[in-house]
């Protein structure tokens, strides 16, 4: 089969499916207690130079408490995959990111991010490999399927494809040109969920973003959860489990773990604090001041929650979207 076009972007981790199967073969199937603190989870499983991804989007069910811990521990030279708002902005501002498989990093309604601009335009981020949101999720889906690539009809004809690591071929069945997306295997994935048991069986309420795909595409998976529930609770609603325990390496209890973002049916987003980042991060000094106060200035997520204070958090709970 002839390759008609090849993106010139770097394929950060050529997918080695045999090695991935071996990795999975050796991963424990035992139902053990995987609860630990965020300090322990991040220090054990996130290494300098690793290929790491965060799930969903910085203001929605995002593992913000884990992301802040990555900053506190100063993990370096990260190769980062994905779409991000506040979470990847914090990493960029803290100078942790070396390479990006980028789909979107921005502040949504507030526009482009100054932290991304400074990091890329200065050359601190060495490489930006371009993808679409659909493409990056489908790359994880390919890994979840255990196959080396997945064909799609997206990205064709554009510079997004030219600066990606995708390839175009003529499909042998239909003769159509299709874009082949290489499977994406993360060294470590971070996902925040509504509830999990101590083994890592995890459930999400509302939209599931790309949690199912990322969980299955990660060699190491850290779950943070608003609530830790008994396994009986999981067994009562197994249809709600999106991430089964054997994928999971660490379970971190993190109430308000998505703050200042929201958590469906639990709490709303804190607009003033999001705006504080939007305004502060316009300069390197402002970004540093925010990091000093909300990340370096507290020892852990518990202290962060205390810093925000019960009164504000109660207000966010009152403002949540309800099922009715």
């Amino acid at each position, binding site marked *: 089969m002839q390759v008609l076009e090849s993106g010139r972007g770097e394929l950060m981790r050529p997918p080695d499916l045999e090695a991935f199967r071996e990795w999975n073969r050796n991963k424990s199937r035992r139902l053990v207690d995987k609860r630990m603190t965020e300090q322990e989870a991040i220090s054990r499983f996130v290494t300098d130079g690793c290929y790491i991804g965060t799930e*969903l*989007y910085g*203001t*929605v*069910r995002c593992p913000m408490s884990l992301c802040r811990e990555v900053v506190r521990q100063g993990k370096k030279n990260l190769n980062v995959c994905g*779409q991000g*708002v506040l979470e990847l902005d914090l990493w960029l501002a803290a100078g942790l990111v070396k390479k990006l498989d*980028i*789909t*979107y*990093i*921005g502040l*949504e*309604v507030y526009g*482009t*991010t100054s932290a*991304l*601009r400074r990091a*890329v*335009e200065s*050359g601190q981020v060495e490489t*930006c490999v*371009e*993808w*679409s*949101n*659909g*493409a990056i*999720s*489908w790359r994880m*889906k390919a890994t979840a399927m255990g196959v080396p690539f997945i064909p*799609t*009809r*997206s*990205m*064709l*004809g*554009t*510079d*997004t494809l030219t*600066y990606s690591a995708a390839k*175009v071929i003529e499909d042998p069945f239909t003769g*159509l*040109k*299709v*874009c082949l997306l290489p499977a994406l295997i993360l060294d470590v994935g971070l996902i925040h969920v509504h509830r999990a048991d101590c083994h890592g069986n995890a459930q999400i309420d*509302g*939209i*599931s*973003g*790309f*949690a*199912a*795909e990322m969980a299955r595409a990660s060699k190491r998976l850290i779950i943070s959860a608003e609530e830790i529930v008994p396994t009986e609770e999981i067994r009562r609603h197994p249809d709600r489990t999106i991430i089964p325990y054997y994928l999971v390496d660490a379970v971190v209890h993190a109430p308000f773990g998505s703050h200042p973002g*929201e958590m*469906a*049916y639990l709490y709303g*987003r804190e607009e003033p604090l999001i705006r504080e980042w939007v305004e502060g991060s316009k300069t390197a000094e402002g970004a540093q001041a925010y990091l000093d106060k909300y990340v370096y200035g507290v020892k852990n997520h518990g202290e962060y929650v205390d810093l925000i204070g019960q009164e504000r958090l109660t207000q966010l709970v009152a403002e949540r*979207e309800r099922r*009715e």
Partner: protein
Amino acid sequence: MSDRAYTKTELMICVAARLFQDGTTAFIGTGVPMLAAMLANKTIAPNLVPVFEFGGTGAILENLPRAVGESRTFHKALCASGICDTMETAQRGFIDYGFLGGAQIDCYGNLNTTTIGDHDHPKARLPGSGGGNDVGSLCWMTVALMQHDTRRFVPKVDFVTTPGYLTGYGAREAAGLPRGSGPINVVSTLALMDYEPATCRMRLAATNPGVTVQEVIANTGFELIIPDKVGVNEPPSAQELRLLRKEIDPARFYI
């Protein structure tokens, strides 16, 4: 401001809202498209099915979402799934409309949201494709919403993030993009544009009230096709303005 005075953004939202047909599906992104969809839903398209990329399908849009994944995008929705599902739904041909924005657009409707200047040494690093490329590739019809000036309407975009008609008639199909898909309109702060079928080049359809054809030409960095007959967009009605200001965005988050 008198009741019938309005801003350029309010008119853009109204012109975009009037493009929706009832009983269709539409991929909705953050910002002006959300307001347009809500306005259409409350006026001409009560059976519009909004689809949000991270999984919300068929939400009741009571409160304005501020992010494409937030709870309001699946408020009382018909289905809450994930991004693979929504993008695959578009890829199977189930999504009629997609709404897009960008820093630059060219005469074929190609959009740039990636970099200004050279990709590897950019003058400005922009957010990237996000779902834009997927929407522009896979929805049947796309509409771009743009500020209208020569910095944004350019002869050649610095980076083709999202496909319009690429290099012209037949280029999408030649590249492998789905047959019969592509841009249908641009709603700008000055005018409404469509595309000439034979060439797939952008064409002026209607100017905003008080805007001359000459002004539109002067603010467009490429040769815009000017047909013999150019319409004039209706200003926002009293009902449209009331809905926008009182019900859709009372906190004036966007307008």
